[in-house]
């Protein structure tokens, strides 16, 4: 924290402390300045930004994580809040003043019951194959339902399941988290209770061989690539 050099104990060698704290050739800007930068960037976009994206734009030696934490603190309780969306950050209006934004509301078409249920099943069971969605709903999932959700950018195609036929799986996206004000898929309402009740287990009809769904409880933990797949 280069902006706190004034606070160092008397007698300490400023050169040495500086060298310890900031290995860069140039001092990073003071944290207050970094906070301003992060603030400006988050204001400038309507999409969430990752720390990495912010970091590559900021001068060398900056610490976007600390700056975002400070900013989040600054906006606590205000009309606009700093919210986490998956691995990224965004500014969003506080929900309690939504009544002021009536004019801003974009009329979204009403989702069909099939689409809503399919979305929830993917979110709570992800990664989920089409067969698993159909198994839970007890009815075929139409191509249009999946297409609609893909179109809304609420789901995307995840890794293929390593079972016969290598079916594609679906997972929810960051846009989904953003839309439903979730900072991560772990925050899905009631997730813990559902899991505790065993309702998210991939149970098959007794007598049928264990395939597909059973393997994914073990699967994603090993390979780290998707992040989202390990949320549960």
């Amino acid at each position, binding site marked *: 924290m280069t902006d706190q050099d004034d606070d160092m104990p008397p007698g300490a060698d400023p050169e040495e402390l500086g060298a310890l704290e900031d290995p860069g050739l140039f001092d990073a800007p003071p944290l207050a300045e970094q906070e301003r930068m992060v603030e400006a960037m988050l204001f*400038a976009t309507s999409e969430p930004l990752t720390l990495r994206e912010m970091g590559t734009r900021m001068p060398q030696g900056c610490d976007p994580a600390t700056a975002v934490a400070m900013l989040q603190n600054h906006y606590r309780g205000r009309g606009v809040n700093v919210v986490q969306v998956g691995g990224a950050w965004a500014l969003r209006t*506080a929900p309690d003043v939504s009544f002021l934004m009536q004019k801003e509301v974009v009329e979204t078409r009403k989702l069909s019951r099939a689409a809503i249920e399919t979305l929830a099943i993917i979110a709570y069971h992800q990664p989920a194959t089409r067969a698993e969605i159909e198994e*839970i*709903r007890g009815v075929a999932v139409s191509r249009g339902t999946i297409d609609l959700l893909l179109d809304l950018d609420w789901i995307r195609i995840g890794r293929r399941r390593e079972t016969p036929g290598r079916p594609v799986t679906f997972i929810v996206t960051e846009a989904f988290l953003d839309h439903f004000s979730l900072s991560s898929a772990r925050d899905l309402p009631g997730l813990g209770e559902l899991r505790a009740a065993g309702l998210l287990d991939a149970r098959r009809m*007794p007598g049928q061989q264990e395939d597909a769904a059973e393997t994914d409880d073990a699967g994603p933990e090993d390979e780290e690539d998707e992040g989202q797949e390990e949320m549960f």
Partner: protein
Amino acid sequence: MTEPGSNVTEIDARLAAEALIVDVDGFEGPLDLLLSLSRTQKVDLRTISVLALAEQYLSFVDRAKALRIELAADYLVMAAWLAFLKSKLLLPPDPKEDGPSAEEMADHLAFQLERLAAMREAAARLMGRDRLGRDVFARGMPEGISTHRNVMYQATLLDLMQAYARIRTKDDFRPYVMDREAILTMEQALDRLRGMIAFAGQWSDLASYLPVEWQGDSARRRSSLASTFAATLELAKEGRVELRQSDIFGPIELRKTPE
């Protein structure tokens, strides 16, 4: 007119049946219908009587049949399965039979219903959350942040020299290719013929169209004959010349198509 009393019961029954049938459109498959039927038991889904449920479902299907309502195949598959489950639940277990017991199957059905109900509730809670564009809002005037990619191409002197050396070496060691000295291509023959055909008002021997400079060497002559002949076929296909051959191995003659 029949007796009023029975008439009333009939109408009631019909109405009750129709209420269910009308609803069939609203059901999202047999599992949804089962879930709906299970509500009449007014108990926790964990303690539901699957046997009672199976009976309700089967009688629903029977009524639909009686009313000649076409039920989708999956409703009938479910009916068959439930009939099987019902018989298994009623009969004492057969020790010789392997596979899941009736209780396990019933348990699983109860689990499926509970899971579907749970997902429905989860979906409703999800939809009830603060939603972007309805309850929370993103920046209305994004100024945007952008990345400009400037591509810088790199090449060293060595790259340049190697490239040149590669080209020159390629010449020295070029793979064997057929020597085309003695080949008159069809395109060449066609070009020649197109120029000459305007003057071929009379039947004349194909041989007279062969290029003179190709007549000395026999390989060159064969090639020019073959390609010229192929070219005349092409022109005939285009309808520009007519061909004739009076007898086998006789001379081939051509002339311009009369206008």
